[in-house]
């Protein structure tokens, strides 16, 4: 017994020494996270929420990743696609970051992906939902912790049909993200047997909706499916209600229509149904802990963007703890990242072969100014990624 104790003590000691030695070496060299997010302009709130969520996850682990200090380099993407390649190159080549985290805007993502391809830098997308990032553009060094437009809108197609809607008008901004979102809905809705009687494309980023609402009224569909976000989302839902259309034609949308906008929507949002991979009212343990921690840290309710930032942080926490903070072997690092599994506030979260989240999509209805979860619209939904099997 005594010898065993001595032996185990020695083993323990050497293990501790070993760990602390790696710590000493690693600590000299912090993990550099380059955050390329919008800190000005229309998407400011999204960039800030993602940053807050990410920092919260890392702070909960003592502000370290795999025993190494963390250095944040914040770069304002301005949500400007034309500046994206240059900004990303700066983070990778000049600042020599270990991970690039960004962006919010899909146009910016296109520019960043080009640089990611040339440099092989590891890029984690905490928002931008363009499908191609984890399909046609397939890169081992690119991960996504958010969603794709298709993933959040596809489940609504069946929901709409099951609610008895047959003739639907769809409306969005005339840009890639909006059209990808509508395509997901249309695919599922027409497969069920529904009909899209009109697809309305509004010039981006116009928020002057009156003429379109008049058009919708004269078409008199069973329901309207829409994708707008931010100020456009608030504008559309309020104008829709003030035109009285919500009394006769139910408004459906992907969750971005109302996400982060509940206060601004006021009464106009009541009854609007959306599908999304998160709702602040989800009753799982991880979410309750997250909501409480986020509220006490930042004094406001988190939204889906904060969760995406948080899960990006948790992904890094888990991966670097497996690796003991050693990021030198990139192949292994990518392998570990791809196998991360999280009990996220949004529910179980894992990653497909194309490094895209496999997650639940929830059907949510706004009641008393909150997104109440009505049902799980699709469980552990995988996105189409035939072009990318790694």
């Amino acid at each position, binding site marked *: 017994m005594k010898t065993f104790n001595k032996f185990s003590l020695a083993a323990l000691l050497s293990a501790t020494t070993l760990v602390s030695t790696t710590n000493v070496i690693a600590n000299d060299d912090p993990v550099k996270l380059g955050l390329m997010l919008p800190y000005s302009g229309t998407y400011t709130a999204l960039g800030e929420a993602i940053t807050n969520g990410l920092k919260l996850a890392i702070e909960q682990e003592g502000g370290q990743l795999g025993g190494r200090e963390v250095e944040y380099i914040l770069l304002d993407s301005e949500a400007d696609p034309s500046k994206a390649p240059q900004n990303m190159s700066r983070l990778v080549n000049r600042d020599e970051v270990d991970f690039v985290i960004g962006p919010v805007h899909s146009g910016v993502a296109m520019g960043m992906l080009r640089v990611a391809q040339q440099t092989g830098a590891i890029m984690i997308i905490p928002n931008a939902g363009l499908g191609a990032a984890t399909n046609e553009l397939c890169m081992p060094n690119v991960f996504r912790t958010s969603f794709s437009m298709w993933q959040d809108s596809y489940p609504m197609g069946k929901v709409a049909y099951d609610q008895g809607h047959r003739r639907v008008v769809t409306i969005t901004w005339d840009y890639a993200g909006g059209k990808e979102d509508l395509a997901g809905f249309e695919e599922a809705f027409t497969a069920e047997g529904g009909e899209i009687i009109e697809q309305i494309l509004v010039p981006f980023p116009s928020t002057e909706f*009156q003429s379109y609402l008049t058009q919708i009224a004269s078409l008199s569909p069973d329901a309207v499916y829409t994708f707008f976000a931010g100020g456009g*989302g*608030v504008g559309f839902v309020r104008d829709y209600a003030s035109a009285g259309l919500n*009394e006769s034609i139910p408004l459906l949308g992907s969750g971005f229509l109302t996400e982060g906008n509940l206060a601004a929507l*006021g009464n106009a949002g009541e009854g609007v149904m959306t599908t999304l991979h998160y709702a602040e009212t989800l009753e799982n343990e991880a979410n309750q802990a997250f909501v409480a921690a986020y509220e006490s840290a930042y004094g406001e309710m988190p939204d889906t963007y904060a969760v995406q930032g948080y899960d990006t942080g948790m992904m890094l926490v888990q991966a670097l703890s497996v690796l003991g903070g050693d990021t030198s072997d990139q192949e292994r690092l990518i392998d570990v990242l791809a196998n991360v599994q999280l009990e996220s506030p949004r529910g179980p979260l894992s990653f497909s072969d194309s490094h895209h989240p496999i997650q639940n999509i929830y059907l949510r209805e706004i009641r008393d100014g909150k997104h109440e979860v009505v049902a799980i619209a699709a469980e552990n939904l995988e996105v189409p990624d035939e072009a990318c099997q790694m």
Partner: protein
Amino acid sequence: MDLAFFSVQLLNGLQYGLLLFLIASGLTLIFGIMGIINLAHGAMYMIGAYLVYDLTMRLGNFWLAIVIAIPIATALGLVIERLFLDTLYKRDHLYQVLLTFGMILVLNEAQRIIWGGNVHSVPIPAPFDSSIQLTDNLRYSVYRLFVMGVCLVLAGIIYWVIRHTRLGIVIRAGAVNRDMVEGLGINVRTLFTLIFSAGVALTAFAGMIAAPLTSIAPGMGDSILITCFVVVVIGGIGSIKGAFWGAIIIGMATTFGSVLIPSLASMVIYLIMAAVLLVKPRGLFA
């Protein structure tokens, strides 16, 4: 297109056009008389909307918020003119453009620091928070009708001031020949301060009165700026009458363009501008 649909769209176009006039009138005043291209025009529209949002939240009364916000916006115009623009009158136009461009950045950043990045809204105020039934499933907000009325009244007042008052004569003369007006013993410097403050106040007021109809978000002024320039260029630089008809044309074109030729919706206003410039290079009423 049936008659009811057409009439409602006509109403939509008119309402949008009138609001555009209110926003563009300040731009054309400043542009026409002072020769200053105020790129910060959209940012001032945004500041107006945020001011009224902030004050409505604090005071619980939209109308009181407007009454307090107007002097604040006027004071902002006064300060900008006296402290910054005043030193640049003798210099080339490029310096003034640079200054007002810088002001966009400063005002946008100030907005972010004071009010943050979230989207806000102002509820439609009583007694206009009701709606009338237009067709069997479409309602029209009474507040929109009220805004149309306000825009028309303001258009009338501006027209009357410029056409029928002594101040109006000076303004018109100043737009044609600044040196001559100065030579006649009129203090152009004071006139400029007045015009700039009034222009900023008008723009900010447009933001205030539009606040309940729109979503108040960062960058909301940037997109409106381009449309305003199109309005001013079509109507003729410096002409209030031109701004009015330019705004109505753009309002109608946007409304009907988006429904009748959706594939060209975002181009319609620029096509019209190009066509007008081909026929009348100085605008319709210059």
